[in-house]
């Protein structure tokens, strides 16, 4: 391994007590080489393991696709935090850790005596991040969330979908991933600061707050015009995606055209063969195009349908107007771009077998950033952590297992 560059964070140990809200946070740290140990309850493991769909559609603790994806690159041990022996073991682990990430409801860790104030007594350098649906304070702190609930509250969902239909949820887990990214940022800031101060700190992260910021923060200044006497109100918020970033059919699928500036519009007209009807000067104005989106759409169809997705994509690059094919998942997975960058990394999981897993979205020159190992099986590293490292005997382990503690 000497010839391979190490991960930038390979000096750090992270304890991961996170469900789906924070799984991507610790995956980010693991991709940079941090040793991330997932601490799961012995019965059934992390709640993420129960989220469908499953590999082969077979419900099983090792087969949740969410767990296989967001908990890849981590080690895993089992530990019940509630009995005194469990809390004691967690504190022993905290002594060896740099970071702890947890996602329990506000107050739960404190009820176990495992809140930051208690853990910093054990390890003053600990950086602890709590990622909760609505944060540790405020009237909604005990509310429940889901990825869709956060998209709705974030102001992004009301802008999503056809103007006469229901707002549409954003696919994937963007709210949780936004919170995870912001949590990972606050953890790195705290670790960096620790080098100067010697002490760790506590980071309070609200998925609700992060989703507004992670998905579309620009609406807040626009619609706070009321603070300024005399400011004209902006147009009402609605589902304008189809007008602003229209999607057009073409020969073999659909493309999305992102022409904003006048030069981009002129380039688009060139791409489409300079049809007379599109050369009217009024169309060069972005706001005019939005105000007359339906008429323009009807005109455009005749021209976009003459070309394939690839022809329009390439011509957009050549002429200077952003045009993208609407790729299906298999289109992107097999795209020249994903292949050239080696974005998908082959994993070999003891239960699921081989599959392609999305790697990190960046390449690093000086350090290794990648997904190196599949998600851990439940309790896979118990022996390594409890015996080899903490010095428990096989008999101790058996007793702890029998008592349901690990």
């Amino acid at each position, binding site marked *: 391994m000497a010839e391979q560059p190490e991960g930038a964070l390979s000096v750090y140990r992270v304890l991961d007590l996170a469900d789906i809200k924070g799984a991507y946070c610790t995956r980010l740290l693991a991709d940079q080489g941090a040793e991330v140990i997932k601490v799961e309850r012995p019965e059934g493991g992390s709640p993420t393991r129960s989220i469908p769909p499953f590999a082969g559609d077979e419900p099983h603790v090792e087969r949740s696709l969410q767990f296989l994806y967001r908990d890849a690159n981590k080690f895993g041990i089992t530990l019940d935090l509630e009995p005194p022996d469990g809390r004691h073991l967690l504190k022993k682990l905290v002594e060896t850790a740099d970071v702890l990430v947890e996602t329990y409801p506000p107050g739960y860790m404190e009820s176990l005596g495992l809140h*930051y104030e208690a853990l910093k007594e054990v390890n003053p350098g600990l950086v602890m991040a709590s990622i909760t649906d609505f944060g540790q304070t405020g009237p909604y702190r005990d509310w429940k969330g889901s990825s869709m609930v956060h998209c709705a509250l974030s102001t*992004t969902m009301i802008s999503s979908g056809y103007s006469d239909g*229901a707002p549409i949820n954003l696919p*994937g887990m963007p709210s949780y991933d936004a919170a995870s990214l912001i949590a990972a940022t606050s953890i*790195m800031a705290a670790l960096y600061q620790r080098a100067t101060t010697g002490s760790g700190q506590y980071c*309070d992260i609200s998925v609700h*707050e992060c989703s507004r910021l992670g998905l579309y923060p620009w609406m807040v*200044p626009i619609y*706070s015009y009321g603070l300024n006497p005399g400011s004209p109100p902006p147009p009402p918020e609605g589902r304008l995606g189809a007008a602003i970033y229209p999607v057009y059919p073409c020969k073999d699928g659909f493309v999305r055209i992102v022409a904003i500036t006048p030069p981009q519009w002129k380039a688009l007209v060139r791409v489409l063969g300079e049809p007379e009807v599109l050369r009217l000067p009024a169309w060069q104005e972005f706001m005019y195009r939005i105000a007359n989106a339906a008429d323009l759409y009807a005109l455009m169809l005749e021209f976009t349908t003459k070309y394939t997705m690839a022809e329009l994509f390439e011509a957009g690059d050549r002429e200077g107007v952003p045009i993208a094919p609407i790729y299906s998942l298999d289109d992107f997975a097999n795209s020249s771009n994903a292949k050239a960058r080696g974005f*998908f990394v082959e994993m070999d999981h003891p239960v699921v077998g081989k599959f392609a897993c999305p790697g990190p979205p960046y390449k690093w020159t000086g350090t290794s950033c990648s997904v190196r190992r599949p998600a851990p099986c439940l309790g896979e590293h118990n022996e390594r952590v409890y015996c080899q490292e903490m010095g428990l005997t096989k008999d101790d382990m058996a007793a702890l297992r029998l008592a349901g503690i690990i």
Partner: protein
Amino acid sequence: MASAPLEGIRVISFGTGAVIPEWGKALGELGADVIKIESRENPDFVRTIGPDMNNIHGFNESNRSQRSFGVNLKKEKGKELVRRLIKTADIVGENFRGGAVRSLGFDYEDVRKTKPDIIYISSQGFGQGTPYTNYQAYGPMLAAASGVLSLWAQPTDPYPVGANVPLPDHMASKQAVFAVLVALDYRRRTGKGQFIDLCQVEVAACIIGEYYLDYSINHRVAAKVGNRNPFAAPYNAYRCRGQDQWCVISVLTNDEWMRFCDAVGNPDWTRDPRFADTVSRLRNVDDLDKLVETWTIEHEPREVMNTLQAAGVAAGMAQRAADTIDDPHTKETKALVELDHPVAGRRLYTNVPYRLSNATLPPSRRAPLLGEHTDEICRELLGMSPEEIRKLTEEGVLDAPSR
């Protein structure tokens, strides 16, 4: 109380649009001195989407907590000033149009000659080393090219239209912030800088990673997934009283279903055996959703949300910005911050989205006017005399603010 985590760190931003400007804002909020390189001749394109380049709200949101250095990179003297500035910097970020920093002489290879331990992040739509490396890319386009848009529709929609949300821009900015903090921590321990090649279309694909596993493992190509959850119901957006008002409800377990039934007052339909358990509810989900809507349509969305949340059921109204501004939780948690801008006036902006127990962060600073800090940067960081500054301003090398 400790100081700000990035106090003493200087960042040079060749940013335009959303990703690198917002990256600069986040680093500025952590205490770094972030300097945005721009000029009247080559402004951030978001400054150009309205009649007054200092009065664009999207710009003013994403470019806070940084200084504007108005300097013309087309002129050799301008380049020389920026090279001198980079000598004092720790981090450089760019998302200019693909290939632009290379032609200007500020790509990583150029910059490391000036500053060997620089941390340099380039954020491009398709990343380095691909046929599309220099494609001028915007977020909405990358949502399409990553597969995200193919999922972002109701199953009955003829084709997806997504939203006016420029996903993945605001996620890419956060990936970039995390990345340079990792690199900074590594440099602290090793003295080594590095180049980070961020690929925005991959940022988008990462959001839907579980669907890529479904493709690879289960050989399914998911499409138009809509609002419903194939494994739980009721789980959808429901129309409420008012004009285009909606609330989403996420019932995942039977316990939550019982709570839901109590919260809506246990009307007869909630006792229908077709809805008794998750499998039955999923089998009869069309009817179930219609019946749920008979309740929601009688109430305003905030009332639906408050009633269900009080009963322990996850629910959230489809908020507009005005709703979030007036929301009691937003107010009490100080999630928004009011700032006064000389042109835009008083506005609310998103506050720092985390609370650190042992750091003192600088107050959020409004976005700069174009060239607002040219003079102080020239004097304080480049040691220039007022005479030199005046001369270069006349020559069109430097831009001072126009007001």
